[in-house]
C-alpha cells in the first residue's frame, strides 16, 4: 500500500482525487493479491517499496518526486507488476504520451473458465483516466476487462510513468 500513497501524493488534481480512494473492507482481498517480485518495469521505478517520505525516487526517467507534483511529461510504454488474482495472472502495459495515458493492454490475463471474470469487468481504468482527463464526464459506461488485479498492475505501471 505504500506505493499507493506515493501515487496519491505525487499526483496533482483530479487524478489524485480518484486514485486516493481507499476501498472499504478490502483488507482480506489485499492479502490475497500478491505482486510477483522482480516483475516491475524496465525503468525499475515500480518498486513496491517506494519511499513516501522523501524525494528518493529510484526512477531513471521523469517519474515525479513526491514533493514536486508538477510536470507530467513521461512518454513511452510502462509495464505494471504481474498480479496473481487466484484465477490467473494479470499484467498491464500502458502507453503514455506527454503524461497522458493513451492506451492500456493486458500482457497477461486470466483465461479459460475465468474469461467470465475478464469480460464481466468494469472500466475502472477508463473511469479513472477519463475523470482525470475530462472535467465534463463523471462516469463511463462500456466495458473493458478490468479486475482488481488489473488495477493493481495499472497503478504500478502508472507509478513507473510518474503519473
Amino acid at each position, binding site marked *: 500500500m505504500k506505493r499507493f500513497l506515493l501515487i496519491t501524493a505525487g499526483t496533482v488534481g483530479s487524478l489524485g482525487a480518484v486514485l486516493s480512494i481507499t476501498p472499504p*473492507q*478490502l483488507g482480506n482481498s489485499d492479502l490475497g493479491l500478491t505482486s510477483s517480485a522482480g516483475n516491475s518495469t524496465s525503468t525499475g521505478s515500480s518498486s513496491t517499496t517506494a519511499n513516501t517520505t522523501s524525494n528518493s525516487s529510484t526512477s531513471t526517467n521523469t517519474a515525479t518526486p513526491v514533493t514536486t507534483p508538477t510536470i507530467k511529461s513521461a512518454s513511452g510504454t510502462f509495464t505494471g507488476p504481474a498480479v496473481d488474482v487466484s484465477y490467473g495472472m494479470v499484467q498491464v502495459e500502458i502507453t503514455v504520451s506527454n503524461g497522458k495515458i493513451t492506451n*492500456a493492454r493486458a500482457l497477461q490475463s486470466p483465461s479459460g473458465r475465468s474469461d*467470465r471474470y475478464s469480460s464481466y469487468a468494469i472500466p475502472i481504468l477508463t473511469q479513472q483516466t477519463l475523470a482525470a482527463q475530462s472535467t465534463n*464526464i463523471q*462516469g*463511463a459506461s462500456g466495458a473493458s*476487462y478490468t479486475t482488481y488485479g488489473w488495477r493493481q498492475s495499472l497503478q504500478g505501471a502508472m507509478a513507473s510513468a510518474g503519473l
Partner: protein
Amino acid sequence: MRTQHEIEVWGTVLFIDVTSEFEIEPAIIELTEYVNHVDEVFSTYKTNSTISQLRRGEIEIDICSPEVIEVWNICAYIKDLTEGAFDPWAVDGGFDPSGLVKGWAADKCADRLAKAGAKHIQINAAGDLSLRGGFTPEKPWSIGVVNPDNRLEILQAFEIQDGAIATSGTYERGAHIKDPDTGMIAIGAKSATVIGPDGAIADALATALMVSGRDGAVWFTTPELSEYSAWVIDRHENVAWSIGPATA
C-alpha cells in the same frame, strides 16, 4: 462532501461516487455487506448460491426469496418484451440472470444510499450505472459511452439526472453473449447502450440489442419502453443508430 469508494465484488470493482452532508462511511460499510449478499445469492460461480441451486434444479422458483423472484419476473418480462432476444433460460446450464443482475443491483445500491440520505449518487457496476440526484441539483450526471475498440475514448455522452445507463459490448476477448435462438455468438451489434429509469431493464435491453442488432428497433418501439433510449454501434458497418428520448 463528495467521496468516492470502490468495493471488490461480483468479479469486478463496484465504483461509488456520492455526495452527502453527513458521514457516509457507515452507509458504505452497510452497502458492502449488501453487495456481498447479492453475490452469495446470484453468483453462478458459487455452488451454494440460490441461482446455482436453481440451475441444478434442486429448488423451484416459488420457494426462493422475494429478491430472486423479483429478478426472475423481470427476466420473464424482458424476454417477452424483446421477443426472446433476452432469454436467461436459454443459457447453457440453466437459468442465468447475469445479463441484468448488475444493473438491477446497481439500482438497489443507489436506492439504499438515497434512503440513507445521500444527495448525489453514482453507482458504476462494470459499466452499468445507476444515478440519483444529478451531479449537482442543477447539473445532471454526464456519462460517457466508451469506444469498444479503445476504452480510453468516449464516443458519446448522455446526461442523466435520475436513472440508469447500461452498455453491453464485445471486447478484446471476444463476444460473450449468445443468441438464445441459435446458440451462436451474438453478432447483432458491436456495442449497445440503453438509458432509462430502471437499471435492470436497461441492462437486459442492452444485452438483447447485442443479439438483435437493428432488428431490435422493432421491439424497442413498444409503448412500454417509451422512457428508454438506445444507442447502438453496428457490428459490421461501424456506425451508430439510436432511438428514444435521450438520443433525440
